[in-house]
């Protein structure tokens, strides 16, 4: 009887061991197909072998470099702590909230010469915010007020 019980327990343990092995193999395969190197701009630029591999690069957006199509940024430069720059193209995918000049972004995509052809763009939020005064030529000044309100500053 005790042998029987031991055998049931052994079978369960065996099942769990096999399952663990299967999950490990699955995880290793999945990891292998979705890896990307996470780099600072200077690290990326220093290693040409990263071209054509999947990379993730973190840097700040150079506001003067942003190229827009229909108001959507499709290309821009990012720079790191020591001002190393790389160009980013981002023609597909969703532009995240708070994208703009000096935003700290993480771009992910295929490495190309001097830059990244990105398919993912995320903003890395910071605890410290940058105060600024409203611009004289506000973004909304081109538009007609729909229903001026009491709070309107115009």
């Amino acid at each position, binding site marked *: 009887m005790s042998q029987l019980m031991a055998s049931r327990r052994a079978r369960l343990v065996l099942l769990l061991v096999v399952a663990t092995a299967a999950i490990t193999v699955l*995880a290793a395969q999945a990891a292998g197909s*979705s890896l990307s190197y996470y780099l600072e701009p200077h690290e990326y630029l220093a290693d040409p072998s990263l071209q054509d591999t999947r990379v993730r690069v973190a840097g700040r957006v150079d506001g003067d470099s942003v190229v827009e199509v229909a*108001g959507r940024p499709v290309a821009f430069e990012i720079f790191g702590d020591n001002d190393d720059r790389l160009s980013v193209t981002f023609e597909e995918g*969703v532009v995240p*909230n*708070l994208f703009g000049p000096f935003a700290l972004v993480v771009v992910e995509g295929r490495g190309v010469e001097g830059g990244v052809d990105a398919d993912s763009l995320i903003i890395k939020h910071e605890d410290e915010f940058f105060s600024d005064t409203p611009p004289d030529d506000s973004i909304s000044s081109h538009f007609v007020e729909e229903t001026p309100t009491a709070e309107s500053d115009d």
Partner: protein
Amino acid sequence: MNFVATLGASALVVSLACALVAIAASVYGHRAGRRDALAMGRRAIYAVAALNTLAISLLAYALLTDDFSIAHVASVSSSNMQTHMKWASLWSGQPGSLLFWTWMMSVWMAAFVRITVPKIPWGAPHAVATAGAIIASFLFASAFFASPFRMSPVTPADGQGLNPLLVDPGMLIHPPFLLTGLVSTAIPFIVGAAALMAGKIDNAWIRHARGWALGSFLVLSIGNVLGGWWAYTVLGWGGYWGWDPVENSAILPLLPLVGFLHALVVQERRGMLKAWNLVLVLAAFALAVFGTFNVRSGLVASVHSFAQSEVGPYFLVLVGMVLVASVVLMVWRLPRMHSDYEFESLVSRETSLILNTYVMVAIALVVLGGTLFPVFSELFRDVRITVGPPFYNDVAGPLLLIMVLLMGIGTILPWRKAAPGLLQRRFAAPVLATLVATAALFVLGVRDVFAIATLAAAILVIVASLREYAVGTKALRTARGASWPAAFGGIFNRDPSRYGGYLVHIGVAVMAISVVATNVYQEQHRVVVSPGETFEAGGYTMRFEDLVVRRPGVDGIESDIVAQVTILDGDRVVDVMEPGRRFFTNFPDQPTAIVDVEGNLQRDLYMFVQGWDEDRLTELQVFVNPLQQWLWIGSGIFVAGGLLAFAPFRAPRRVEVTATETPPGTQPA
């Protein structure tokens, strides 16, 4: 001198002292057999909760009165923020969220000391001392590393305001639920640690940890669902879960908690899994602390991370201490953790529960491994490598499918063992119903193998759970001669955790159906249009009318620029959608999305704006998310089930309502 800041900071320091008193008094009282010292330890925990309540009230007062001489107030609030958003800023930013965390943890601990500690004389001093140690470690961080009462070097005329992304009513509910859910994992941990320290590894600790674990599971689940809802309705990327490292951190403690809520039934009924249950509660809290570290350390790139700060390494030490303490306690008491019974059959409910908790832990390890992949790769290969959403989808996806399948099978299987004839009777109707429903899905055009498998498993769960309700109601009706509705209500009263649990299962199944539909069958349309131009998307004809500007004049909002899009049926206007971008005074060049969702039970029409040029040529993105609303409906069912199951301080009275189907001698008495 700022009175509020001084009083708040002092309250935190005195609170820390009280936490240390709780530890010392409990240890001394236990060793010397002094009941007065033990009582002092308990009262010290109440004092910690009271002082932390004072501290957070003072911070709230400072926020509501625009006291910008306090640095935290100046950095997260501004005078033109509405009152409810000032309340929301209480738990934003590093110091605020940490104070909220510490306060909420102390409140849970005070409730635990009041409700449960008197009922566990075998481990009361251990529990109070453990609670004191945990709260002291967080108070230390809040008082010295990330004090919310630090003064501004120069008092600004106005504050900087809340981060634009957080200016949303979601901020009022998502973080409090999530943080509360995370801190509440401390209580099952404390009960488990007390049981280990006291060497009381029987079912007693399980009885007292169950209610707290269920409460924690419920609050944490709500917090995660609210996070998904917020991401979906506010962030404007069309989804609700992105496998972001911080999202992962929030869901990680939930997995061992769910495992525990299932494995504890096996321990209660079969005397098995004693070590496993302890591992699960210890792991849940360790993962919750890991989450606080992860979000504050700058360790991984996340959309949620705070800036890297000195508090990060401190929390790493804390994670290490929790892990080491847990391992030491487990190894010390391992010889006492033998099973009372052995398996009688592998085809039994206990086996399915064991497998399901195994799957939970496997998912947790996969998610943790993926989250920490860059750290390990840097450690071993000196290069940071990340894994993206495909990794999680490829690995966690199949595991979640197995989890749902086991939920269905486990519900049908009897305890201990069953004759083949009984199994056939139990499985026949659910399997047949599932096959018919799956065939119908195929006929309706569902061809994706993973989608079909998951939908079939979800349908099995729903049918199996409904069958349990039917069998239980019928048995109770026969036993009592009650009406059908009365008998149906009666089964929840008889065994709330079991029948509430089945409702949770139905909720999970409904959510799984929605997750499959939205992931496999989502349609995405990207259009660039001029004012007046008509376009097709998702089977609808739409016309982009124009961009208009609105100025709410509150919460630091400079302007909302809204695209008016009419949905047409021929010439008839069916609906008007208004997605747009929101611009903030303190972030003039960094707009956020205004998402518009027009939903029904079949699908959500989800629209957001990516940008426009000086000619108002505008890029719109239109997503069609099938069955999206069912995710929220499933969440509601899930929560309702959790609430029904929540009878934390009452031992369930088990009635074998399925006894009529069970051969004699196969069910425990």
